């Protein structure tokens, strides 16, 4: 009996809540849906923050988040067993899958050029918005569009930082780069964005 099956047999609510991500992950791989549910509950806020930028609507983002969890579990066996890569912590793997699926989702729908980016903003009150609010919303939309057009690594570091609030150390682990390198990419991204925002003013 492997570790995943053992967890599946003995796990009650408390046992699952105290199990490590990796133990739950292996249990989910052996088909334990309670372990999978616990993983989702544990990381749903993080994944939600990561995929919001790529979803056209909240429903779209929720479905994307669901796909992220399913793919993360599936992908583990493909990537780490078939290709014999070095295993990484589940959380870092989950973030990688979320960013990649989000990016792919946005590209498939050719959304970057055609549609406003990120979740639709609900107006606070009925009726027309003041001109200032409309201008601010438009500038924000443009800045988000610019962020997604940054070079790949800069875009990834920037969104991991401002969407999910990850530390540079965690961003480095997630992307397989050093903490300092993550920071350098972030600096470049912000400099470009600031210059571009100023130009559009």
């Amino acid at each position, binding site marked *: 009996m492997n570790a995943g099956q053992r967890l599946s047999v003995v796990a009650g609510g408390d046992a699952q809540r105290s199990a490590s991500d990796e133990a739950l992950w292996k249990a989910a791989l052996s088909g334990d849906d309670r372990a999978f549910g616990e993983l989702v509950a544990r990381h749903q806020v993080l994944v939600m923050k990561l995929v919001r930028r790529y979803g056209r609507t909240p429903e779209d983002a929720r479905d994307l988040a669901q796909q992220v969890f*399913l793919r993360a579990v599936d992908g583990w066996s493909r990537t780490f067993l078939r290709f014999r890569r070095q295993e990484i912590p589940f959380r870092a793997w989950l973030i990688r899958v979320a960013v990649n699926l989000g990016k792919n989702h946005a590209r498939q729908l050719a959304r970057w050029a055609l549609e406003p980016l990120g979740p639709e903003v609900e107006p606070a009150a009925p009726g027309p918005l003041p001109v200032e609010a409309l201008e601010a919303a438009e500038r924000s939309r443009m800045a988000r569009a610019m962020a997604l057009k940054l070079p790949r690594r800069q875009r990834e570091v920037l969104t991991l930082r401002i969407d999910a609030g990850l530390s540079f150390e965690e961003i480095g682990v997630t992307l397989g780069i050093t903490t300092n390198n993550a920071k350098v990419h972030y600096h470049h991204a912000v400099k470009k964005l600031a210059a571009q925002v100023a130009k559009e003013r």
Partner: protein
Amino acid sequence: MAGCEEMEAKILDRAAGALPEAESAAVQAHLDGCPRCRAWAASCAEAVQLAALPQPSEAELRLFAQLPARARVVFRERANRSVWGRPLTVGLLGAAVVAAVMVVAAPRLRGRRGPSPLAAALVAQPEPTELETWALSDPLEDQEEQAVEDGSVEQDDGTDLDLDSESME
């Protein structure tokens, strides 16, 4: 460079909310006395603020609260499908291979040269999808980026603003 060079990294860290507490007083003191750095720090902070997503709405929070239950149902359905669907999948795959072989072999048996375009399409090996490549097999690796050593990324003076460039992809 829009401000004092020695302050650039600290101002950018400050815009990220990543400036160590111990350094914030010194940076603030510099900003108080340097209008150029102050203006640049404000524009960096504004850019980050503009690029950030708005807070999730009530409707979004409600939708996302459904996620664990929904995902678990889909997971269970997939697990059941994979148990019962495996023999069927193998059978279908076998039938597809036999059909492809027959399509390829038939013209040869009739003395024709090479398979028809339709047959060629049928026997073409499926390419891995971008999704597979990105999300599963090669997550976020970037060969060019791997060559970048710490701090050796070429200095960006803000003049290279071709945001359409995907040269780092």
